[in-house]
């Protein structure tokens, strides 16, 4: 049975406690700046890279052409039937996340996740305009909206909004010719979908980076839950050397005369945390392992003349070793384990397979769908005819003449619908649907046998490139 005392029941809903991360310097902060510049640079610049593909194809290096169902990536062009390349890349991305998570924990969250990168950028803007942690705290606590507060707030929001618009704007450039779209956007000639997409992404960027921040990671993102299943006792994660730091300076134990540990309870690690947690409480769901607390603590340890690493990257196994007085395992031993080697091998295997598939794929391509409704027809003179719907793909930037031939039985002849010739011109970068007839004269073996294996060949007669597909010919078996 359930018992609840309504008078003592606590509130089940809590208001967000605002987080004001303090500025921090150090190795990990520098690494994060570099990653931010590189990732944002790739995101904003990529659509503007040009790549000459000839007269009939777009000259944008990376283009997702939804209207024509093509994906261009520098020298690679992916057609819809080659979607397995995208599937392969997704498998690689998945294995890559497994690898990084099993070796380095939530390193994706801490360094490369767009939510982290943009929030970091928004906090940087906030710090430039409103000042560091204490100034921002004061501004937050100031109830009265005077001119200064209004000016700082509106400046900050305006800069955020500009970043958000640029973010949404950069996204749409991946889907159409960027320079043309940029002009169209300003002359109001762009497609409504472009404006809607920019508006939605502007809104989400502004809201997620400016206001929701750590709440996206805590409440909205499923990744923290999934990651727990992929981490083990050897996974490197950000931790606090409790056995070295405790009892901390202001604790009851120290007041009662116990010898103080290395932690001087300066709260530097808490003040820099973008998630608003205390790493000294141990591993927590909120922690995205951004490692800023390591930088903050190392700084303090240097000032008080203690060794660095009170807060550090470590694994669960290190705790047992260090508590028993042994040195921690070297980082490389945490990273090089059978599990990570396996993930790396699988990742490399899929990658090698994709590259191999990319190199052997032909420039011309054909798929043959035999029409089996009906399986065959009899012509007036008794000839048996089978029909095939053939898709001819020309991946070149100019029209090419394709000739169709059939091998398998000398009596089987090929004819094309709509033309007396065996050659059909396929326009540049296009798939052509061509109905193809195979005919066997009355009395011949293929006309009488239930089934004859045949091979359809397509040849680009301007280059001699060939491709084939096997199918079969149905005869009048009775």
């Amino acid at each position, binding site marked *: 049975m*359930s018992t*609840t005392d309504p008078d003592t029941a606590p509130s*089940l809903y809590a208001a967000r406690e605002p987080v004001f991360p303090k500025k921090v310097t150090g190795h990990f902060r520098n690494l994060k700046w570099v990653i931010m510049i590189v990732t944002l640079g790739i995101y904003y610049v990529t659509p503007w890279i040009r790549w000459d593909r000839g007269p009939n194809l777009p000259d944008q290096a990376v283009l997702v052409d939804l209207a024509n169902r093509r994906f261009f990536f520098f020298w690679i062009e992916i057609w819809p039937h080659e979607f397995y390349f995208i599937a392969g890349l997704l498998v690689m991305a998945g294995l890559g996340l497994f690898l990084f998570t099993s070796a380095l924990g939530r390193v994706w969250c801490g360094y490369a996740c767009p939510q982290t990168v943009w929030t970091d950028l928004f906090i940087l803007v906030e710090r430039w305009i409103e000042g560091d942690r204490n100034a921002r705290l004061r501004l937050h606590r100031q109830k009265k909206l005077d001119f200064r507060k209004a000016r700082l707030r509106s400046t900050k929001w305006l800069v955020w909004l500009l970043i958000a618009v640029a973010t949404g704007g950069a996204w749409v450039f991946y889907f159409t010719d960027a320079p043309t779209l940029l002009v169209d956007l300003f002359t109001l000639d762009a497609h409504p979908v472009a404006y809607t997409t920019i508006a939605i992404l502007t809104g989400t960027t502004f809201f997620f980076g400016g206001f929701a921040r750590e709440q996206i990671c805590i409440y909205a993102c499923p990744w923290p839950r999934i990651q727990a299943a992929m981490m083990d006792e050897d996974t490197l994660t950000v931790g606090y050397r409790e056995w070295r730091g405790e009892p901390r300076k202001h604790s009851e134990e120290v007041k009662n005369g116990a010898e103080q540990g290395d932690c001087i309870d300066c709260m530097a690690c808490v003040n820099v945390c973008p998630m608003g947690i205390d790493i000294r409480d*141990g591993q927590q*769901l909120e922690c995205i392992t951004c490692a800023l607390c390591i930088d903050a603590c190392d700084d303090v340890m240097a000032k008080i003349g203690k060794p660095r690493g009170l807060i550090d990257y470590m694994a669960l196994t290190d705790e047992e070793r260090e508590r028993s007085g042994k040195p921690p395992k070297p980082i490389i031993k945490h990273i090089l384990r059978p599990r990570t080697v396996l993930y790396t091998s699988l990742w490399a295997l899929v990658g090698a397979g994709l590259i191999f598939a990319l190199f052997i794929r032909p420039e011309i391509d054909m798929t043959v769908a035999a029409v089996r*409704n009906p399986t065959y027809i009899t012509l*007036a003179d008794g000839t048996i005819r089978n029909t095939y719907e053939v898709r001819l793909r020309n991946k070149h930037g100019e029209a090419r003449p394709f000739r169709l031939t059939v091998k398998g039985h000398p009596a089987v002849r090929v004819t094309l*619908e*709509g033309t007396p010739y065996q050659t059909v011109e396929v326009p540049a970068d296009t798939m052509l649907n061509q*109905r193809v007839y195979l005919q066997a004269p009355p009395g011949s073996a293929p006309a009488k046998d239930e089934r004859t294996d045949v091979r359809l060949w397509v040849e680009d007669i301007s280059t001699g490139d060939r491709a084939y597909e096997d199918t079969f010919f149905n005869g009048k078996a009775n």
Partner: protein
Amino acid sequence: MAKQPKDKNQEPETTGHEWDGIQEYNNPLPRWWVWIFYATIIWGIWYTIAYPAWPMIQDATSGYKGWSTRANVEQAIQEHEAANAEINEKLTSVELASISEDPELMAYSRSAGEAVFETWCAQCHGSGAAGAKGYPNLLDNAWLWGGSMEAIHTTVKHGIRNEEDPDARYSQMPAFGDILDEQQIDQVVNYVMSMSGEPRDAEAAAAGEEVFVNNCAACHMEDGTGDQFQGAPNLTDAIWLYGGDYETLTETVTNSRFGVMPPWDERLSDAEIRAVSAYVHQLGGGQ
């Protein structure tokens, strides 16, 4: 996301709920979360007012926005017809024979014609247009009334042997059971079979030639190659609408056949008739 107590000896905060001695830690949801929950309730109420929702005795409340799937379909059909108006206009204004020379018209006719065919024609002629006994195969190159674009168009538009359309193609084979005796029928059937290269009884076939010339050649021609102006089938080829075996041919000669096709200009637009004619024409047997 319960914050750990500052003092390790202190009990963590609970919700105060207790089930059989099991207590629940308090992990408070963010306040905005519960606002969103209230917002969805309000939105839900608005939705039942705006859209068809509450079941009544006859039907459901219609909603103030007047939304209905039926109206949406009608609108979608109108939009498609408006979008196709230009090409339909072009399709109905050009010469029938020149449709196949225009790649744009041909591509449109292939898809639009297929849609018409699958809706109106497939019931008899089959979804693959291969026909069935009594319903001609449209894939082969044998045509009762002609396989040119013009001939197919006329057949589709007016139909065959129907009462509704005075321009329908019309012909009737007499039931020779009333005219010839059984022996003559046996002879002529054997003669017809020998013509198409399926000889059965040479003696009867030789006797049947005279019966054929006297009774059948007016429509089927003396050499048996038929006459497309009268819809008289070619009896010398490999194709039989009802079957080329002795029993079926005997039945055909004795009782005659009377296949009908409705006139489609009552139900289909001019553009649809042209599209489906072009579709049938390009199926492989068009002449």
